[in-house]
């Protein structure tokens, strides 16, 4: 495999990784399979689109705005809809998050139409040349931002009081309650962080790729794969999972052709579920 393809797939894997982490956190820590996640990512992309078109804000800046707005949306969805119905189990969660997805998708379709959109800042065309390989500047920036955000999320989870609180709740809910941690608040923040990451990734996605509501299904599929590969709730696992998916898709492309990428990714996911349900690198952490 040529270096060019490897580099391209790693750059793509960075976005996958960042996307997958939010989803993985929601599933791993709260046990919520958030079918609206793909819609949240795309919503982030559209928020950046508007920021760019109306205020000429660069997507690498407006990603903060996307993240913030999606954080609030996530918090509202969790507190208003999910929290009251958690007792209903997986059936309720699936139906509920799917309902939210439909609502968000409809809003996007009405406001922005199903046409593919993109954001084209001035420096879009530039590439950096390293030997024989060409690296598009925007994709490189996106990769580094993704890496930084992943690291920041890790720091948040490991070093801050809230993050440690979330970890505690995930490891032993009753134990956390016993030491006075506000369990519901931890779940809420965790979920909101998840959607914030989704929105942020959407902005990053928008700065390199076209986007439209049509992508919602495909993106949702990818975050599933990344989360499973990495082990639910495992940040570095999802990071590795994302990179792995990027590379696997490139290999799939080489061996089988472009259209088989989805099938390859999903096939790997099913394989992991059968043989290593804790993810490629995980051990039984959040169980």
């Amino acid at each position, binding site marked *: 495999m040529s270096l060019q393809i490897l580099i391209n797939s790693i750059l793509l894997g960075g976005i996958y990784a960042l996307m997958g982490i939010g989803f993985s956190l929601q*599933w791993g820590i709260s*046990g919520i*399979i958030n*079918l609206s996640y793909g819609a949240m990512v795309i919503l982030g992309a559209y928020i950046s689109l508007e920021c760019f078109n109306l205020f000429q804000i660069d997507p690498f800046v407006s990603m903060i705005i996307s993240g913030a707005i999606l954080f609030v949306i996530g918090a509202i969805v969790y507190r208003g*809809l999910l929290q*009251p*119905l958690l007792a*209903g189990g*997986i*059936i*309720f969660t*699936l*139906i*509920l998050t*799917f*309902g*939210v*997805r*439909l*609502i968000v*998708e*409809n*809003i996007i*379709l*009405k406001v922005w139409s199903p046409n593919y959109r993109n954001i084209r800042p001035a420096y879009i065309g530039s590439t950096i040349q390293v030997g024989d390989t060409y690296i598009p500047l925007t994709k490189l920036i996106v990769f580094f931002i993704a890496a930084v955000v992943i690291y920041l999320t890790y720091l948040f989870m490991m070093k801050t009081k809230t993050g440690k609180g979330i970890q505690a709740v995930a490891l032993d809910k009753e134990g956390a309650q016993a030491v006075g941690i506000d369990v519901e608040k931890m779940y809420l923040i965790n979920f909101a962080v998840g959607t914030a990451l989704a929105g942020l990734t959407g902005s990053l996605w928008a700065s390199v790729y076209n986007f439209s509501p049509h992508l919602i*299904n495909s993106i949702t*599929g990818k975050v*599933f*794969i990344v989360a*499973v590969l990495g082990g639910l709730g495992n940040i570095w696992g999802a990071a590795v999972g994302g990179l792995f998916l990027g590379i696997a898709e490139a290999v799939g492309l080489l061996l089988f*052709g472009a*259209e*088989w990428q*989805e*099938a390859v990714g*999903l*096939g790997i*996911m*099913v394989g992991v*579920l*059968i043989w290593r*349900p804790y993810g490629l690198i995980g051990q039984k952490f959040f169980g």
Partner: protein
Amino acid sequence: MKLLIENNKKINILLFITLMIVFIFLPFFLSGYWIRVFTTIFMYAVIAQGMNIMYGYMGYLPFGNVMFFGIGAYIAAIGMNRGLPFLAVLPLAALTAIFLSILFGIPVLKIRGHYFAIATIGINGAIMGVVQNTTEITGGAMGTTLPIIDKPPAVTYGYFYFAMLALMIIATLLLYLVINSKLGYGIRSIKANEEAANSMGINTIYHKVTAWAISALFVSIAGALYAYWMSFIGPTEVFSTVVAVKVIVIMLIGGAGTILGPIIGSFIVSMLSEVVWSSFLEYHLGVLGIAMIAILFFAPKGIVGTMDDFIKNRGLRLRKKVSV
């Protein structure tokens, strides 16, 4: 009504027979549009029964069960496009689906809970991908057509109405027989406590795979009929997640783990879909989403369960008044 359905067999059977007689005579009073609506209701009821045996009775949620619908549809399409008559492709579709349910079932049914649900979605997506890419055989992402029946529409609609009705009746009866058989007890024991069932010597893998095979049987025949009925199918519609979620909502509303639940649920959800689709064309997705969420909040036990609660509470309130 839930009490009635669970405990009073006679009323249950009477209800069922009455409904079936009504359905048999209904098409003579309805317009073509409504005949199609009812045909869809019967079809979803069958798919829901397929889900019902897995989740309602065995406790495994095959989120991606719609894969068998798609397989049934495509085998029918491929077979008929090569000249086979419909009655020949029907068993072919069913057998393919059953074969795949066993092939995938043996490894995948070892997974539990969330992971199992997601694995089935993964398989569904992968199969959809395969169908979308083997363009020479399946027509790819563009979809494929089936031979059109050379009869006036009213007659055709009538055929499919009765075909789906028959399928629904057969599936429901088959489910009833299976559930009350030794196999059915094994299946239900898995839902109650799989480890205990295992220790009692029940071959859980056998029961799980058989349940999924039965599920595949129902759903794939529905898919084959659908393909012939529509004369045109595409991969995204027959392997669709929306269908999968709709079926789950049907089970929830009708009551999972009951024999008639999926039929009732299919009625309610299909009617709801029709109303939403015709009244809110541009917003139908969003309204559907709101409706689904509303159902979770206001009727979590399903229509039947909620009415049941209402009746019980009314009784309690009356009794309280009297005792004072």
